[in-house]
Structures are given as structure tokens and as C-alpha cells.
């Protein structure tokens, strides 16, 4: 419940986060026309044309990447993942992609859909403007097969910031966090490790050592947690302050733009930069 965003109806004093969410859903109205158009093509179910990236290094004839076309039924509510699963089950059982929970929680199916990093299960066909729908594996990561990319490096970066709570456990009680502090880290806890942000980041693409938005966001979540000792915070800041830590971010806002969980990533990275400066500034 606490991770749920509460939308207020009042126009005037919306929080910046709410404003951003509103902007993200603004294009909704424009798609309405297309939606009705698709629905009105006779009695039969509307179909969607998928163009899917294919590549298989283990089969001689498939070593050269190509795009396969699928025409799959897409009634209202069909997600890109649904369409892919239909294509796999009905047309080509060799079509490979990761998926698990189908409700934007597991973070397995981050894909490059119509030129943007999105979760296949969170993206409804009707919400996409372009036809055919282009489905590609995440950019900036090496492709293992079809839509499956090598996530090893991403996980390494996440591990590098020690993404676990390191507070002292008191003897008898649980570790209580103040409401204010919980609010502060709330958005950062929503990360599902899908790797969309890392894939969208230009800097991470050019600098393999750069921690990347997801890892810095993870570090933010724990560094801002007041239950951890100052020593641990210092230790966390030491990781972030390195040359390839927070300072590589050039505020392109690509990560914030694509994050399926609407985490204000750039904001968090900038805050860690300021923390790093505060950490090292000495006036005497």
C-alpha cells in the first residue's frame, strides 16, 4: 500500500512527481482515436503487426540478425508480452524472450519497443503509436538470443553498491524507520532491476565502469536510510564518489524518461552528487 501513489484531484498543488505522471499519461487522449479505429474494423478481433528482432548464434542460418514479422490478434488490453507469447505459442516456438510475473514486478521483460525501453507486460499494444510494433532486445547490452540480453554486467553494477541494509540490529526490537525517512526513500525502493534505465543511458553505454542509474538509485535508497550508521554511509559515499560513480551522470534524463516504475532517477543521482560535495567540502 505504501508504495502506491496517491493521485490527488486538485489541480493547483500537485507534487512534481504527480505532474510528471500526469504528463506521461497525457498522450492517452491522442491515442483514443486510433483505438476506436482499430476496434471498428468489422466484427473480427483487431490484429497487430509485430516486427521482432531475431538472432541465434547457435544456428548457422540465424547468425545474421534479422526481423521477423508476426500478425497476432490484439483485443483490447493486449500487452506486447501477450502478443509475443501468442507469436511464440502459435507461430514460432523458437522465439526467445524472458518473462515471469506479467505484472511489472519481476523486471524480466524490459524490451526495446518502438524505440524506447519499456516493460513488455506493462505496455499495451493500443498505447503504442507506431505500426508495425518493433520489438528489439535492450540496446547497449549484448544479445544472447532473440530478445534475451546478457544482464551480467548490470547485476555486477548493482552488486557493486552493496544493495542491502547494513544497519545494526537492536537486540529486542525491529528496526523502525521514521515516516519522513520512509517517504524520502519510497520511490527509490520501487526498483525492479529490469535494466531499462541502464540501457537508455548514453554514458553507461560508453563507460562500462559507470555505476549507472539503477545502481546509484539503489545506493541512494540505503545511503538516505537514517537507520544505517554514519560509518556505513561514509562507506557508501566512498563507492559513489569514485571517478566512475555519480559524476559520470550528465543529466540527459533518459533513465527518468524510461523507468517503468516512475522512479525520479536523475533527481536521486543529483542528490547523491550534492551529498558527495557536502561530504568533501571543508571550510576550515
Amino acid at each position, binding site marked *: 500500500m505504501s508504495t502506491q501513489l496517491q493521485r490527488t484531484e486538485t489541480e493547483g498543488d500537485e507534487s512534481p512527481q504527480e505532474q510528471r505522471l500526469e504528463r506521461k499519461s497525457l498522450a492517452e487522449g491522442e491515442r483514443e482515436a486510433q483505438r476506436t479505429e482499430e476496434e471498428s474494423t468489422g466484427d473480427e478481433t483487431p490484429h497487430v503487426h509485430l516486427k521482432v528482432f531475431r538472432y541465434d548464434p*547457435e544456428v548457422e542460418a540465424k547468425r545474421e540478425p534479422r526481423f521477423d514479422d508476426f500478425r497476432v490478434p490484439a483485443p483490447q488490453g493486449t500487452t506486447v508480452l501477450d502478443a509475443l507469447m501468442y507469436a511464440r505459442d502459435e507461430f514460432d516456438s523458437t522465439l526467445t524472450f524472458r518473462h515471469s510475473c506479467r505484472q511489472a514486478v519481476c523486471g524480466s521483460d524490459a524490451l526495446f519497443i518502438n524505440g524506447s525501453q519499456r516493460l513488455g507486460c506493462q505496455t499495451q499494444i493500443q498505447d503504442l503509436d507506431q505500426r508495425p510494433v518493433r520489438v528489439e532486445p535492450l540496446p547497449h547490452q549484448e*544479445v544472447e538470443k532473440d530478445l534475451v540480453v546478457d544482464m551480467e554486467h548490470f547485476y555486477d553494477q548493482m552488486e557493486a553498491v552493496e544493495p542491502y541494509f547494513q544497519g545494526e540490529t537492536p537486540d529486542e526490537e525491529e528496526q523502525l524507520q521514521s515516516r519522513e525517512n520512509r517517504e524520502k526513500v519510497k520511490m527509490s525502493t520501487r526498483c525492479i532491476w529490469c535494466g531499462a534505465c541502464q540501457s537508455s543511458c548514453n554514458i553507461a553505454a560508453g563507460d562500462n565502469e559507470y555505476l549507472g542509474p539503477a545502481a546509484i538509485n539503489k545506493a541512494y535508497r540505503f545511503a538516505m536510510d537514517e537507520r544505517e550508521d554514519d560509518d556505513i554511509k561514509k562507506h557508501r559515499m566512498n563507492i559513489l564518489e569514485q571517478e566512475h560513480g555519480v559524476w559520470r551522470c550528465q543529466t540527459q534524463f533518459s533513465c527518468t524518461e524510461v523507468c517503468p516504475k516512475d522512479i525520479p532517477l536523475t533527481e536521486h543521482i543529483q542528490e547523491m552528487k550534492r551529498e558527495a560535495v557536502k561530504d568533501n567540502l571543508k571550510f576550515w
Partner: protein
Amino acid sequence: MSQSHNRGLIEDFGRWREFAPGMWAWIFHKFTGWVLIGYLFTHVAVLSTAISGPQLYTTTLRSLESLLLVRVLEVGLLAVATFHIMNGIRLLFIDLGVGLESQDKSFYASLVLTGAIAVASVPTFLSGAF
């Protein structure tokens, strides 16, 4: 997996239509920055003619100013410098954590301001050029 495929094509500039405002701001900032560095060298070169005396400096500047291309480029230079300053201020605010929510709007604002200032400078830079 024995092998994996590294695609060069997907991340190229051909995707420019999908670039977000923040990305454009970054590209323009880099571009204008490099232009300004390039200009700095020509600027120093032109100024250094004064070492050989005021005569040479005056003739160099006069002959440069008589070229229509130079007059037009001056407007471009002003636009480049203005955008770099405007976006620099925008980045400063972003670094301070101020107005991160309207980063796209502030980018558009710096574009509009740049355009307005460049247009307003045309009479000054191009007067008597034609």
C-alpha cells in the same frame, strides 16, 4: 551461451526522432561547447595580429568584416554562445536540484530565448553587409 551479438546499429544517431528533450539539450550543449572552443582559437589568432602593430590588426578586422560569410557566422556565434550560456544556467539549476521537474521546459525556454536573441541581433551584425 557460447556467443553473443553486439549490435552497433541500434544505438546510432539514426534514432534521433526518439530522443527526449534532455538528450537534445545534452547534444546541443556538447556541440555548442566544441564550436566555442574552435572559435576561441580563431579569436586568439585574429587578436594576435595586433602583435605586429595596429595597422595589420585593423586591416585584418576590416577585411574579415567585409565578408558576408563572416557577418552571418557572427549571428551564428552569438546564437551558439547564448544557447551554451542558457543551457549552462539550466544545468546549474539541475545540479542544485532546483526545477528538475521542468527540465524539458527550461530546455525549450533556452531554445526560444536563443532564437529571439539571434534574430534581434541580425540588424546589428548585418547592417551594411548587403
